[in-house]
């Protein structure tokens, strides 16, 4: 930009409220509130971050600050607590505020970054970084990058490239690392370079039973299904039981349970229906569709039918 433009462009005051509306930040935050159930602390943190960035942007228009703030983040929480969904929203938010140019989200895991032989890792990591430029790079289960038990692991190489890019290309790319809380802590302790380059640590709490019930109703509504009143009670029991069993993944477990319930409902309709079915019958999940789950029979941690008993699937 020319110096002439700079001199004329600096305004004297900034109206934060109108900035908030016109930048589209308000819209993203509203969407976040409406589309995501629960997650109050996460929403609070995002609102704070948005406020910080908005003020920072205002300060920049007044010529008070010039540096790009560090925006790399870490999301820690159990599986199925909405980390990827929030990362998508975050990408939208950063895009509206002008901190990333394109606002797309590139979601990767260790396999996408780390190669299998010497000289394979660097091109692979760079390939991903090139795709993520101008957007947000979301590294799921980031701690797998670092394998302390194997000192010749290629993960270290990927980490070094990432650190370098996180430092040098702060204007071009925002990195979000996600994973279980305790393992993320270990990861950051072992890699102090990341800890110091990540400004925002956001923790995702588990959903409560009521929130999960709301989520299941919303998931069904999206596909034009609904729970019968008895099925709703069954779902409540299901959630309470499922939580105690291994491999519980919050909203993801609920999604899988509902997928199987729909399967059973289709099967039931197919086998029992005598006459023509109306829309209500086709879109109602009954109590028996949910109660048939193996979770109610003591539960198996693997969702696979034992070969001899096909009826329990």
């Amino acid at each position, binding site marked *: 930009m020319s110096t002439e433009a700079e001199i004329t462009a600096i305004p004297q005051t900034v109206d934060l409220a109108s900035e908030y509306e016109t930048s589209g930040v308000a819209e993203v935050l509203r969407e976040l509130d409406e589309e995501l159930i629960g997650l109050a602390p996460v929403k609070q943190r995002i609102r704070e971050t948005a406020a910080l960035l908005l003020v920072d942007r205002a300060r920049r228009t007044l010529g008070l600050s010039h540096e790009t703030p560090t925006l790399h983040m870490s999301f820690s929480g159990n599986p199925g607590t909405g980390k990827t969904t929030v990362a998508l929203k975050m990408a939208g938010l950063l895009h509206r505020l002008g901190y990333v*140019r*394109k606002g*797309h989200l590139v979601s990767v895991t260790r396999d996408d970054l780390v190669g299998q032989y010497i000289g394979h890792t660097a*091109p692979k990591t*760079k390939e991903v*970084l*090139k*795709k993520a*430029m*101008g*957007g947000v790079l979301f590294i799921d289960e980031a701690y797998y990058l670092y394998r302390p038990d194997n000192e010749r692991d290629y993960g270290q190489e990927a980490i070094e490239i990432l650190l370098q890019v996180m430092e040098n*290309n702060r204007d*071009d*790319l925002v990195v979000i690392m996600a994973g279980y809380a305790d393992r993320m802590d270990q990861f950051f302790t072992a890699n102090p370079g990341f800890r110091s380059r990540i400004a925002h640590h956001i923790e995702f709490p588990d959903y409560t039973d009521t929130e999960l019930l709301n989520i299941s109703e919303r998931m069904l509504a999206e596909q034009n299904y609904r729970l019968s009143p008895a099925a709703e009670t069954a779902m409540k029991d299901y959630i309470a039981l499922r939580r105690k069993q291994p491999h519980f993944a919050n909203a993801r477990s609920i999604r899988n349970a509902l997928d199987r319930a729909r399967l059973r409902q289709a099967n039931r309709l197919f086998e029992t229906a005598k006459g023509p079915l109306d829309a209500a019958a086709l879109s109602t999940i009954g109590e028996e569709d949910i109660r048939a789950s193996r979770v109610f029979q003591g539960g198996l941690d693997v969702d696979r039918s034992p070969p001899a008993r096909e009826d329990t699937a």
Partner: protein
Amino acid sequence: MRITQGCFSFLPDLDDQQISAQIEYCLQKEWAIGIEYTDDPHPRNTYWDMWGNPMFDLRDAKGVMMELDECRKVHGDSYIRINAFNDTRGVESVKMSFIVNRPASEPKIHMQRTDFVDRAQKYAWDVRPQ
């Protein structure tokens, strides 16, 4: 002698900001970007060396600029061009190609005229150092 090949070669050299803008245009058309270099700018030399693989699925010009910087570090004294490839079925060809780097002193293309049978003239061109 200044080599003129591809787009923009009669204009002054593009600076990085202008190159970025051109790449943005290509990406917005969903063309794949490839970087190629050579020390032989003869117009008949269509086979330039590839710098890495062509880049598909990029969203921002910065990714290409990173590769270009790397390429300039290694082949700063060569010709480097950027090709934009359209992979639409039925098109499948380079839609845009422009030079982004030239050696400090460019070779000249020398023309050799030879007499041939029955007073015919044959022409040949070769690249020679200045």
